[in-house]
């Protein structure tokens, strides 16, 4: 790390975006970016608590986790992963458009991101509804007898099966909540981009909003194999 981050002399360009307590626009941008990265670090630990529970129960109750995972729709899961990857692409291109000052392109890309976000949530909703119909939602109406019937080769304890679905709903639910927040952030960004607030000199909100979106994407990149692909190999 350098000795001191502040340049002694003031920069000449001093846009309206520069807040009073920063010396330079660069210092302000660096601070915002670091702040977002640190926030993402806390998010890793937030999801980490659930990953810890997942790891321990999966090691102990592998059969039930495998059966639960088989009951998910792997096609929908794959499609949803692709939807999120597409949305990450539009975000990355959006940041690029902002860097180059292409306002219309930026607005289009941000809108596309929101569309992908809704698509993801819609598909997720369909999957949840399927689980509801199959009585796989933990609670009084939970019923794993269909899994016990479908997979006679593996031994399934209903209470441990419920544990898998508890984690499935907790993890995908909180991920979806992050998606909803992300869509909200991007709606805000789209509005301001449309108003022309972002220029090649000032596009920090786009950049850090993008970081958040990519992070939520990465969480899903791990959730997909961990929840959908636990044990898909043909049963002997």
């Amino acid at each position, binding site marked *: *790390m350098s000795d001191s981050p502040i340049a002694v002399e003031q920069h000449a360009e001093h846009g309206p975006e520069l807040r009073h307590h920063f010396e330079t626009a660069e210092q302000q*941008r*660096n601070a915002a*970016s*670091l702040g977002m*990265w*640190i926030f*993402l*670090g*806390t998010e*890793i*630990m937030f999801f*980490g*608590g659930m*990953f*810890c529970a997942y*790891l*321990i129960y999966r*090691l*102990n109750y592998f059969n039930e986790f495998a059966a639960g995972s088989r009951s998910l729709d*792997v096609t929908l*899961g*794959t499609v949803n*992963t*692709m939807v999120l*990857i*597409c949305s*990450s*692409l539009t*975000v*990355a*291109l959006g*940041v*690029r458009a902002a*860097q*180059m000052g292409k306002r219309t392109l930026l607005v289009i890309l941000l809108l596309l991101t929101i569309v992908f976000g809704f698509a993801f949530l819609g598909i997720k909703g369909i999957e949840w509804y399927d689980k509801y119909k199959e009585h796989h939602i933990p609670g009084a109406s939970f019923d794993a007898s269909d899994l016990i019937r479908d997979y006679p080769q593996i031994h399934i304890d209903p209470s441990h099966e419920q544990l898998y679905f508890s984690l499935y709903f907790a993890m995908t639910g909180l991920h979806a909540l992050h998606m909803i927040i992300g869509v909200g952030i991007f709606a805000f960004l789209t509005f301001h981009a449309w108003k022309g607030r972002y220029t090649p000199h000032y596009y920090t909100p786009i*950049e850090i909003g*993008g*970081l958040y979106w*990519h992070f939520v*994407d*990465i969480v899903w*990149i*791990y959730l*997909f*194999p*961990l929840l*959908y*692909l*636990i*044990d*898909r*190999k*043909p049963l002997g």
Partner: protein
Amino acid sequence: MSEHIMSSKLYYGIWITLMILTVVTAKVAFIDLGPFNTVVALVIATCKALLVVLFFMHVKYASEKLTRMVIISSIFWLLILLFLSLADYSTRALGHG
């Protein structure tokens, strides 16, 4: 943070790679690799995550190490949580109640 503007070709390249890796991970899961199914799935997921972090999130072009330090220390702390919890669970069966 980067002033670096990446070419859109690179973005599309990363995107295609991510899409292919997604299909690969879904397909590989149906082949019996024994205990390596999980390993493969996690390696592919980590590759995808790295691509997103390095290129989409511009960490490859970030001028300073601080961002990397934040990422690495968060992951390190997550590993502390996972491993020390496992230290309990994996040795419970060894007896001594």
